């Protein structure tokens, strides 16, 4: 049996957990002192050895990404933390920054030192006021303690750290769109290559990492790469925060080694809400193909989830029971993608618009099986032909729902209406 491994979440139950004092009390900023005494390349090597892979969805090896930064090139390097957290279902970085912003700040300082960056940014979505306050305060406290600024702890290392609030655009979570946004433009993705490690912010070498990736760095420095790699599976090492939401008895954040299964997590969370059964779920947000009760025992690591036809993504486990109309869920996600498409490329801009129009009709029971073929055809024209992964992600709920729930679409057409009672899915269903 897999058990939970609170590391990033370990001190969240301390009422003052977000203050520097509390963080230091629990050993915080010790790793910073250790790191600043190490050669930069040794830190990069330790992160490589740990096997840490990006926690923002794609799972790219973090140490390898850092290794792509050209060293001693005389150019300014930049570190950018992706705190845009807007993928539907994803809700781990926000509580992390609310309860434990110093873990992120310490991670930023160590990571910036390793990649030889003297300026770092935390790009946080603008719709989370109190989280932004906590980040601002944590950064101010770190400046006061001499952890950020000039000649940090007498080592000669200088770092400025800016908390930058976005303004409401899911696409700005895509790393190159984020850079355009941070440069003061509309957030639209850039052509890759060149990758940000070579030409990123202001054309300079830039590392972009997710909040949880960077916040994991102090623990790796403090406890060693082997310690980190002792958790998880062969190719998906370490721990991660799993977010359970929806029709679960006890939704919330569960920090566990990669490779834990939904069956185990559901057990811990008290199961699907009383009297109901699991119908479908997302392993890593709405952009990852849906799973069903067939997939309860798939190890939640990058390889196994991929082999089962989906993606680990952000470990955003949105759980839906049998009262839920899958067509309704897919329609709403499609409306989201249509709203958030940046408009740069035709397959996504037009494709998500057509998804929205068609699904609206189908959800109301106006359609035929032919429409499902049209939807799949449309998906073929979006997937792999879009400029960035938003377009690809938009196809996930559509194609996977047709794969697993074709009959349910057809029932809509047969009835000429949605066969579900939407009230039965609400939190207050059954109460009068």
């Amino acid at each position: 049996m897999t058990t939970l491994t609170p590391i990033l979440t370990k001190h969240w139950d301390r009422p003052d957990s977000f203050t520097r004092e509390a963080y230091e009390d629990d050993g915080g900023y010790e790793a910073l002192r250790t790191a600043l005494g190490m050669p930069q390349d040794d830190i990069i090597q330790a992160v490589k050895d740990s096997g840490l892979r990006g926690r923002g969805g794609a799972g790219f090896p973090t140490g390898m990404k850092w290794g792509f930064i050209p060293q001693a090139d005389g150019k300014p390097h930049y570190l950018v933390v992706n705190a845009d957290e807007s993928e539907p279902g994803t809700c781990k970085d926000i509580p992390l920054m609310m309860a434990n912003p110093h873990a992120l700040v310490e991670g930023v300082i160590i990571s910036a030192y390793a990649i030889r960056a003297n300026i770092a940014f935390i790009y946080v979505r603008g719709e989370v006021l109190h989280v932004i306050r906590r980040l601002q305060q944590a950064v101010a406290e770190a400046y006061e303690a001499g952890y950020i600024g000039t000649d940090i702890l007498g080592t000669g290392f200088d770092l400025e750290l800016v908390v930058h609030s976005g303004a409401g655009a899911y696409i700005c979570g895509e790393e190159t769109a984020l850079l355009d946004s941070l440069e003061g433009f509309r957030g639209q993705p850039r052509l890759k290559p060149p990758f940000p490690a070579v030409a990123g912010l202001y054309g300079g070498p830039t590392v972009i990492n997710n909040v949880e990736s960077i916040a994991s760095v102090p623990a790796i420095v403090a406890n060693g790469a082997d310690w980190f790699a002792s958790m998880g599976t062969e190719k998906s090492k370490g721990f991660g925060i799993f977010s359970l939401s929806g029709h679960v008895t006890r939704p919330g954040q569960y920090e566990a080694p990669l490779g834990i299964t939904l069956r185990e997590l559901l057990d811990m969370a008290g199961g699907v809400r009383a009297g109901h059964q699991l119908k479908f779920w997302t392993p890593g947000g709405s952009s990852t193909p849906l799973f069903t009760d067939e997939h309860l025992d798939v190890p939640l690591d990058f390889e196994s989830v991929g082999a089962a036809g989906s993606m680990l993504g952000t470990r955003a486990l949105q759980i839906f029971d049998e009262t839920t109309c899958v067509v309704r869920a897919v329609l709403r996600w499609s409306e989201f993608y249509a709203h958030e498409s940046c408009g740069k490329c035709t397959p996504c801009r037009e494709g998500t618009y057509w998804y929205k129009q068609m699904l609206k009709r189908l959800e109301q029971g106006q359609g035929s099986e032919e429409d499902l073929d049209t939807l799949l055809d449309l998906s073929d024209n979006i997937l792999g032909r879009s400029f960035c992964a938003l377009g690809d992600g938009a196809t996930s709920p559509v194609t996977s729902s047709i794969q697993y729930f074709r009959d349910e679409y057809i029932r809509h057409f047969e009835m000429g209406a949605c066969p579900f009672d939407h009230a039965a899915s609400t939190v207050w269903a059954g109460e009068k």
Partner: protein
Amino acid sequence: MNIRRADESVEGSATVSTSFEPEVLERLERDAKEIIARYPKPRSALLPLLHLVQSEEGYVSEAGVRFCADAVGITPAQVTGVVTFYTQYKQHPVGDFHVGVCINSLCAIMGGDQIWRELSEYVGVGHDESTEDGKVSLERIECNAACDYAPVMMVNWEFFDDMTPDKAKQLVDDLRAGKQVAPTRGAESVCSWKQASRVLAGFNDGRAGEGAQAGYASLRGLQLAKDSGWAAPEPERGAE
């Protein structure tokens, strides 16, 4: 972001102010200078500057656009191109309390759709509209990274977790009656839309210490681990 399609109506922007009073301008210029100084290149300051002008007027007016354009040395048309891309920038005044209801799939299904329907009818305004007294405006919002507290609402970007239609109506009544309202995870009371915008521009309001460090759902895994005696493996000592 918003893409306007030819077949969707474009609302005329209700911009009235075209320039700021001298003393306002002076204050804004001081703040703008501080914002711009944070960045290696001035244009990077554009998003926070737009939050700043929004904190002055509650929305981005023509005056706000011109101010930002001058501040970073680009044209007003370039600024407008940015303003229209991001949903948090408003092109007409919103209420003192901007109320969002999450209608992304998970919240919608858990009850967000019903909350929206009942609340919108109760308040008598639709998406992106304000009450006549200018106190409250409503918006259908996307996933706000709080799904474990579904259905979720936001007021001036503070979290209101585990909402119901009745709680939503009570909340709006309280806001309109001028009562202090506390978010479930946030400061002790909701600040005004303009004050919130100022924090987004990067000016801390000193309220980070208020409110709980974490909501109950955020702590569930930790609680269970503690109750069960589970922990991460001990690091091998001597490694340091």
